[in-house]
């Protein structure tokens, strides 16, 4: 079904634009990814800087920070996720409408970072929700967040509408709810959501 890339360029030169429904859909989606307006820690300052005039995230169509999860497409986990905050983050993720994407920004969000040994710090948000792009750094520079966003756009661009390997939001059988953890006696329960993350085996 896909039109040959060379043929498309050739036709473009003649003033004929050829596209497919899937390309049109992905083009629209990747250029209007609205992030959710919430910051968790110091990385949020870098996220704010990214949206301001100097780095201008609006160039990529992601400047409309929504204060409600219902209107947002992307969640930027910007900072340390404490075990007290984790259930709220997971609940907000569940309340976002599909399709939804997650960028884990900074060392804390991807692994717990410098606070990894802390009793109250979640060691990576990917234990509870599926993360699309991880950015290392403490904090990552605004350029790094833009890089992550461009990576996400490329990912959206590559998604297929039908058949095997189509994204979760187009698949009726795919998992739609990611259980919200609860405060247990010593830790969050469960400590991670099944199918997303497995406890790594330590090789000594």
């Amino acid at each position, binding site marked *: 079904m896909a039109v040959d890339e060379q043929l498309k360029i050739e036709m473009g030169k003649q003033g004929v634009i050829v596209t497919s429904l899937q390309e049109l859909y992905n083009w629209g989606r990747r250029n209007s990814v609205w992030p959710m307006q919430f910051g968790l820690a110091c990385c949020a300052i870098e996220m704010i800087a990214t949206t301001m005039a100097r780095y201008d995230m609006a160039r990529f169509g992601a400047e409309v920070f929504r204060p*409600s*999860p*219902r209107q947002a497409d992307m969640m930027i986990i910007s900072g340390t996720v404490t075990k007290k905050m984790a259930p*709220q*983050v997971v*609940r*907000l993720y*569940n*309340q976002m409408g*599909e399709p939804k994407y997650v960028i884990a920004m900074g060392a804390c969000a991807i692994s717990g970072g410098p606070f990894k040994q802390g009793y109250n710090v979640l060691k990576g948000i990917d234990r509870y929700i599926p993360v699309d792009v991880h950015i290392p750094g403490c904090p990552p520079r605004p350029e790094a967040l833009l890089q992550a966003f461009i990576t996400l756009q490329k990912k959206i661009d590559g998604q297929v*509408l039908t058949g095997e390997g189509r994204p979760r*939001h*187009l*698949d*009726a059988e795919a998992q*739609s*709810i990611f259980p*919200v953890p609860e405060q247990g006696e010593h830790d969050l329960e469960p400590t991670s959501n099944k199918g997303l993350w497995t406890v790594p085996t330590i090789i000594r």
Partner: protein
Amino acid sequence: MGSNSYLSLAVFFFVALAFGLGPLALAWVWAQVFSPKKPNAVKNAIYECGLESKGDAWVQFRSAYYLYAIIFLIFDVEAIFLLPFAVAFTGLGAAACISMLIFVLLLVEGLAWAWAKGVLTWA
């Protein structure tokens, strides 16, 4: 020719209707074909700040709050009219002063009535 002018209006109406409903219909068709609905309890929760809502939203407020707000209006209206009156006071005659007194007395009467009713006593 009279009927023709109305015909153009009708055409305009239907085009406008299609212009509005067309995209909605397309979005609906798209949702039916491609994006399956997957509602769940967490997603459908009314409150969306991340926390679970506790209790019922249909709580009763004391009517005393409402009465206080209404009585506040007495002073509010009074101030609005008293200020221009005070500014123009030196140039006013006796009739203006008496009518202003009556106006203020009317408002004070309302306050006195509320006071007598025991509205000002916060129990």
